[in-house]
């Protein structure tokens, strides 16, 4: 069957195909943008955290009394937690994954000039306590740790452990080990030196954990000393998880309870619990967007089905004639599928353009990220499939039209 027949038939009855085309165009544009928004919510949730979270307890909300916690109190807290049966490792820390109440921010410049904003986690031996997987280099040496806020290590490059993703962003395929990083705008001084690379480490500022920035996190060799903020990461024995959690809560209460200001309740929870809480709003948004996408899809499918159904009905006699002239059922079916593919095809091409323009305009007006091009074919393909699905039942009905219809007056 030639495309000429298809086209001429479309030209003669232009209202119905035009309405389908407009619908597809708009639906495609909306769908591309909604898919993108959905992905932005999904991306931090899907990003590997790098943390061995099953047996990890995080402690936060240790509000200080009207003065800072002293280094001795921090130390005593660590010791008390270590003494809890079932506890394997304890790190006092500043900045922990899934603890959004305290976020350390830095930026480093690599040798090529690439500046990347990172979150950093600080604390003694966090690498082991968090259960991170080292893929290159080494952990910090005990001698490399510095007391937070002190002058220790001044003039010596600060060792730093980075993630694989950061290594790629700063050093490409070259080995990052032993290379220097600097703060942007700071040319002189010892800078920082990369001593280790971990596979993954999810940052704790979630709303920028998108577009490949989820792993922009570094570990620093800082020992928590005098501090207004205090967190603990506690690794426990898998066989004693619940007992250890109870023990940790008791130890925290015993150690800090008397000093905490009235009404503050320290929190000790498993990593998975914290993760669920952190992603709560993301999950809610995800359901919302999924609902929107589904509604758009359903409305479009119904629209295409209704229009094509009517159109098939209108052309019953024409189909009968074609059947009488020797067209097989499959030919009729194929004709309607092809016709739909053509209309929807033009619709999605226009729709992709509209999605792109719409996004560009929204980006201009609001703080919105650019719609990555890969969402355009995704939306387009989805629309094409939906179009074929929607036309299937009317097309099958058309294929069932008996040739004898041709002899009847419509």
């Amino acid at each position, binding site marked *: 069957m030639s495309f000429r027949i298809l086209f001429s038939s479309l030209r003669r009855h232009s*209202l*119905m195909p035009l*309405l*389908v085309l*407009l*619908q597809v165009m*708009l*639906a495609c*544009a*909306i769908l591309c*943008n*909604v898919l993108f928004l959905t992905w932005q919510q999904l991306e931090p949730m899907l990003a590997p955290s790098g943390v061995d979270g099953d047996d990890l307890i995080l402690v936060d909300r240790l509000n200080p009394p009207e003065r*800072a916690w002293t280094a001795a109190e921090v130390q005593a807290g660590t010791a008390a937690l270590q003494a809890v049966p079932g506890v394997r490792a304890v790190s006092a820390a500043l900045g922990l994954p899934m603890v959004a109440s305290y*976020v350390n*921010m*830095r*930026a480093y410049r690599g040798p090529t000039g690439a*500046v*990347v*904003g*990172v*979150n950093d986690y600080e604390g003694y031996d966090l690498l082991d306590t968090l259960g991170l997987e080292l893929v290159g280099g080494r952990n910090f040496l005990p001698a490399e740790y510095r007391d937070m806020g002190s002058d220790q290590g001044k003039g010596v490059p600060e060792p730093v452990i980075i993630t694989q993703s950061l290594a790629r962003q700063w050093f490409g395929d070259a080995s990052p080990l032993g290379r220097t990083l600097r703060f*942007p*705008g700071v040319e002189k001084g010892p800078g920082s030196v990369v001593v280790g690379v971990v596979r993954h480490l999810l940052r704790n*500022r979630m*709303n*920028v954990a998108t577009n490949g920035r989820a792993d922009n996190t570094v570990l620093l060799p800082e020992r928590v000393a005098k501090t*207004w*903020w205090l967190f603990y990461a506690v690794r426990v024995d898998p066989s004693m998880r619940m007992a250890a959690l109870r023990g940790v809560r008791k130890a925290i209460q015993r150690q800090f309870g008397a000093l905490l*200001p*009235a*009404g*503050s309740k320290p929190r000790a929870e498993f990593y998975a619990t914290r993760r669920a809480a952190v992603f*709560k*709003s993301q999950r*809610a*948004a995800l359901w*919302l967007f999924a*609902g*929107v996408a589904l*509604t*758009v899809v359903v*409305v*479009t499918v*119904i*629209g295409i089905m*209704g*229009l094509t*159904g*009517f*159109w098939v*009905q*209108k052309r019953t006699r024409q189909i009968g004639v074609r059947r009488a002239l020797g067209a097989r059922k499959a030919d009729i079916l194929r004709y309607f599928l092809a016709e739909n593919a053509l209309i929807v095809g033009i619709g999605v091409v226009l729709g992709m353009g509209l999605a792109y323009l*719409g996004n560009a305009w*929204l980006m201009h*007006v*609001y*703080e*919105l990220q650019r719609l990555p091009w890969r969402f355009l074919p995704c939306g387009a393909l989805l629309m094409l499939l939906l179009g074929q699905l929607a036309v299937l039942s009317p097309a099958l009905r058309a294929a069932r039209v008996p040739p004898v219809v041709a002899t009847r007056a*419509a």
Partner: protein
Amino acid sequence: MFRYSFELAALGLRRFPKSTVLVVLTVALGLAACMTTLTLLHVLSADPLPGRSQDLYLAWVDTVLAKPSNAGADVMALNGWKTTNYHNIKLGDAQALLTARRAARQTVVADMEADEVADDGRRAQNQQVVLATTSDFIPMFGVILRHGRDWTPAEDAARTPVAVIDTGLAQKLFGTANAVGRSVRLKHTLFRVVGVIEPFAPQPRFYALGTGAYSSDGGENLYLPYTAALDAGLSPYDADGCDASYKSSNTSDFDPARCASLGLWVQLDAPAQVSAYRRFLQDYVERQKALAGFDKKPRSALTGVADWLKQNDVVPDSARLNVWLAGSFLLLCMLNVAGLLSARFLRRSGEVGMRRALGAPRRAVFLQHVLESGLACLAGGVLALPLTLLGLWILRQQGNDFAGLAHLDPAMFATLFMLALAVGALVGLLPAWRVSVVEPGLQVKSE
């Protein structure tokens, strides 16, 4: 003729109930999506203090003794954190500008965090936000007193520990709304309650954005003279910047004498007063000799409430984005319905041709079909109301700080009604025109 057309339209709706239901549902979905997002935007961008906000201005002079630096801001921007400047000023400037009394009314505001303990020590509210301000705040912002009085300028000057609390806090701490005469302990100072007010929670909380623009559960519940608050050892929650000489021991503890942490609001009733005050501020900052050597241009600003909210992007972009998304979805629904209606109307071509042949004017056919689509869309509008309420309920479950405000009000209800009518008329035009141009003779022949 109208009545006849109307009857025909109603009859037409009943003839293909399945497609009528589809049309009504689609219209309802589109309208509900649009109304849900519009309602949220409407709530978020509403005037926080109708009738007063146009006379209120935030005055700012930049007297922080530090060289301007962007290093910190850049790091924050790289990590997706917006740096803000809430136009706070230092204590010395606040006092100087307050005593100058160049405006009809003037007050300073600063949010502070404190545990509120009842005088008998039996009940307490921990980690609450209190507003340190002056006696002008209550008349200036139109706060409604329920019991007792507001404090006086003399009590401000004498640094008297007095407080005004809202009925919610009075109930929680003292078990009664009339708590005048009781006291609340903040840190180690007892503040005597002189007045009880209706809960005051304009949305957005434009006067102190540092602790969040929207708060579903209110914000401050206790108001006290800032002089007495500082005496009691409370300190501002938030600051824009501190003198270079100031070394903070704690990231959330600011010395107001050396950190810009107080917001100065003035009431100016006429444009002439506004320009005069603007000049006064600029003169004030240009007279500051201490600023020499910090590479700073003398900067001041006087910002009205509406501009202030705009300048700080208080209405989240996502709310506007959602309106655009929902708007395009409504358009999609309208196209869809136009298609469904076209199919439905053209199915009756034969019948219409017959009517035309029997002498019905084109106008009558057109009217009948526009009415039919209008009726369907009106039904959709009615169904959209419960769907919008459902949509708003879903929004409230989203758990961000402003979603809790999403409720339908009469204005938005009227908008919904108008929107449904407009959609109904628009969507019916094309199909009704298409069916009204059906040729009488031809149809009779071919069908």
